[in-house]
């Protein structure tokens, strides 16, 4: 209910709600107030045009059309609502039946609905108008039955999508009956879209009714609705337009009121609050103390921000690292740590409304921002997580590879295709499969084709964002091996993003551990299990079961959960889950600091230990001398 009130608070929702209330008021009171005037025959004022006494003119019996339009509100709206209720009710029942009927009977109902839904409502309405006879009852039933098939289809679609969810399966496993599942779980979860669509349907029922009456097969004299008044007015539209335009405007406004309310409801109930975009995200001081090395890719204080409902949200908050030639660097972190966004940002793929800032962001010694597309297109290769969705399903694999060379290397279509086939061969995909569409490839083969796409140029860096996550373990290995081979053969640098520590450990020279939008630790992979210092890194390593984990001990657990990007607060973001956290950790965010060559940690406690260890060794050395 509160959500529906929110609909009435949007400008469109409010305007249409007011209109609907006005219509309801007219429908209730107009016949009482003006019923007499609307029926008063005036033989002195037959077929008049617009005048002060009769703003919309008079009809063939001299009756005032304005009054007739107002009074007709009740019949028009009433019939439209009646038709909607009957139609929607029939539709929902038809749509829900297959869920409770035996399977064969359900199929019959579904097939019948599928046939009926292909025919436009007006045609169905005409058909039923013939069957039920011209007149009010016939028209109500005609419009109702014309609405029913599309509602049945809608109910079916919605029901099917809800039925696929595991809570339905769980309820069935628990022994909840089919009918009860439908009533308790399915219908409540499809009610909202159904109500929204019913509102829209009321709008179209209203106009459809007007259409039937206008054609003379709806409401019959002496009753009158807007459609009938319109039809009467149209006969003399060349003489005086007002008698036709009056009811026409009424139909349009009423139809719009229903439609707009439905649209507003759909917008409010279907979407999250719109992001607020004020000014630019705040800049932040650098979070590394040393100006570390440089390489193929140099990143310094990279930040990515998006507008959120309560201002800017910054999922990547000052990331600095470098990737050198022929080096494989891994980035690990849980979902929401900002690792994928970092990959997109360094490759200039973050789109509006996201904002990327960095003190330095350089690829091959030049700012990424100004590098021409031709250069990035041939020297920076990307591999994405899901090979199922990363290829365009409507185009052949070969053409998707070839367009790189056509676009950036000036090749003819034929040469480019030749090269595509050749590159596919190099990743052990038969060249003639270039002709095929992505859905004809297996997952692992698609991922290799994606890598081949990067090899169309001469990549100096491959950024692979979770390249193996969607693949089965046995397929994972060949993709990782392929990346390793490219590095070996071409001295290409690789930035490998993964949530899976074991993948990173097997493939990478160096690891960056990310948490809550920052790098918390950077160290050589070889030292990951022996020398990791950050409490998050060590906890993460302990929490992941391996084939050596002691089965008699409970798994190490990190209490709590990672913070959402919007809820990052002061201090170290890991402090709420950290067994070592003290007051300083909760107040002040640590800086990524070198503890050894090639090993940087962002943790106050590690820094303290480091300092005391130094002091101790200095002290002990002092003691011996």
């Amino acid at each position, binding site marked *: 209910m509160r959500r529906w009130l929110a609909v009435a608070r949007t400008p469109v929702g409010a305007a249409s709600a007011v209109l609907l209330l006005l219509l309801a008021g007219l429908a209730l009171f107009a016949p009482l107030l003006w019923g007499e005037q609307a029926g008063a025959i005036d033989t002195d004022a037959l077929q008049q045009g617009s005048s002060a006494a009769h703003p919309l003119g008079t009809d063939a019996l001299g009756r005032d059309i304005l009054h007739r339009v107002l009074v007709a509100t009740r019949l028009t709206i009433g019939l439209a609502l009646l038709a909607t209720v009957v139609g929607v009710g029939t539709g929902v029942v038809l749509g829900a039946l297959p869920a409770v009927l035996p399977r064969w009977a359900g199929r019959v109902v579904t097939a019948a609905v599928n046939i009926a839904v292909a025919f436009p409502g007006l045609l169905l309405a005409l058909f039923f108008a013939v069957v039920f006879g011209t007149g009010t009852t016939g028209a109500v039933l005609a419009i109702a039955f014309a609405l029913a098939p599309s509602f049945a289809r809608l109910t079916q679609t919605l029901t099917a999508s809800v039925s696929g969810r595991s*809570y339905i399966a*769980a309820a069935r496993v628990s*022994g909840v009956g089919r009918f009860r599942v439908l009533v308790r779980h399915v219908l409540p979860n499809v009610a909202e879209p159904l109500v929204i669509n019913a509102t829209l349907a009321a709008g179209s029922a209203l106009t459809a009714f007007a259409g039937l009456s206008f054609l003379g097969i709806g409401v019959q004299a002496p009753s009158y609705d807007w459609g009938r008044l319109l039809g009467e007015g149209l006969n003399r539209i060349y003489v005086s337009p007002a008698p036709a335009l009056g009811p026409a405007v009424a139909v349009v406004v009423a139809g719009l009121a229903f439609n707009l309310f439905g649209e507003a409801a759909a917008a409010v109930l279907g979407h999250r609050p719109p992001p607020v975009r004020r000014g630019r995200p705040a800049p932040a001081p650098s979070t590394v103390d040393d100006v570390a090395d440089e390489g193929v890719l140099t990143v310094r204080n990279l930040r990515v921000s998006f507008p959120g409902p309560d201002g800017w949200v910054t999922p990547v908050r000052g990331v600095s690292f470098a990737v050198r030639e022929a080096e494989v660097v891994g980035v690990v972190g849980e979902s929401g740590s900002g690792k994928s966004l970092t990959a997109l940002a360094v490759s200039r793929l973050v789109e509006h409304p996201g904002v990327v800032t960095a003190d330095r962001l350089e690829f091959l010694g030049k700012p990424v921002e100004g590098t021409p597309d031709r250069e990035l297109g041939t020297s920076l290769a990307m591999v994405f997580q899901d090979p199922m969705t990363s290829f365009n399903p409507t185009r052949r694999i070969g053409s998707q590879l070839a367009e790189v060379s056509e676009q950036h290397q000036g090749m003819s279509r034929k040469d480019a295709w030749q090269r595509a086939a050749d590159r596919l061969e190099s990743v052990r995909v038969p060249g003639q499969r270039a002709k095929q569409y992505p859905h004809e490839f297996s997952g692992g083969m698609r991922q290799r084709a994606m890598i081949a796409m990067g090899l169309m140029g001469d990549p100096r860096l491959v950024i692979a964002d979770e390249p193996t996550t969607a693949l089965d373990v046995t397929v994972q290995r060949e993709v990782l091996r392929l990346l390793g081979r490219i590095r070996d053969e071409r001295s290409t640098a690789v930035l490998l993003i993964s949530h899976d*520590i074991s993948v990173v450990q097997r493939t990478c020279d160096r690891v960056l551990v990310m948490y809550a939008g920052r790098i918390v630790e950077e160290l050589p992979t070889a030292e990951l299990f022996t020398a990791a210092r950050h409490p998050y890194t060590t906890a993460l390593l302990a*929490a*992941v079961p391996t084939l050596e*984990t002691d089965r008699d001990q409970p798994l*190490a657990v990190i209490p709590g*959960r*990672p913070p959402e990007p919007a809820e990052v607060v002061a201090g170290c973001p890991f402090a709420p889950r950290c067994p070592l956290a003290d007051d300083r950790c909760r107040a002040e965010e640590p800086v990524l600091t070198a503890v050894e060559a090639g090993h940087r940690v962002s943790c106050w406690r590690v820094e303290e230990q480091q300092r005391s260890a130094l002091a101790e060794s200095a002290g002990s050395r002092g003691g011996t001398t």
Partner: protein
Amino acid sequence: MSELRFESVSVHYGHRRTGHLAVDDVSLTVPSGKVVGLVGESGSGKSTLASTAVGLVDATSGTISLDGVDVRRLRRRDRGLQMVFQDPYSSLDPRMSIGESIAEAMPRGTDRRAEVARLLELVHLDPDRATALPARLSGGQRQRVALARALAGRPEVVIADEITSALDVSVQGAVLNLVRDLQRRLGLSMLFISHDLAVVRYVSDRIAVMRGGRIVEEGEADQVLARPRHDYTRELLEAY
């Protein structure tokens, strides 16, 4: 205490000739009070096998029995067989409080309020949260609620289908510990399905390896891991 037994179970999807065999003549026993881990890649048929046990999918041939009684002859509610699903974000009805969701599976005549509180405590959640909607819970908490709901049916056998694969690694451990703890305390028989061999190894007494709808290897967990007999098992092990 119950034993779940699959005997020559096959599941065929789609058209008789053009469809495919998702589960191909599988026989597997989950001994009373033991955990059998079922590993395999996506599409290997392990989830389909689980679905046949709880009646979400009909087996084309073969029988599934609980202590020797064909599960199809037991009423769902009295089967003593429950399942926990993979996706924490679709496993709870978004319009029902978690208490209602848990209570739904309870046998008639239970003191629902007290039982909900007891179950929530059992899965380390605050009983006061019984009135909360799932949207207020994190993924890990939702999986605990899903576990509590499964336990509400007083099952003797629980099937856990990839229950941690949608969770972050830092959260996964807590759920695995809970599963192991509950299994031991309640003496449940359990079929634990996962694509992650290390996870399966951690919770299981026995391990079955599934591929292409068939079980290619099955045995004591230690034996399967230390002395794999099938090439595919070896390949899986090498990936770690």
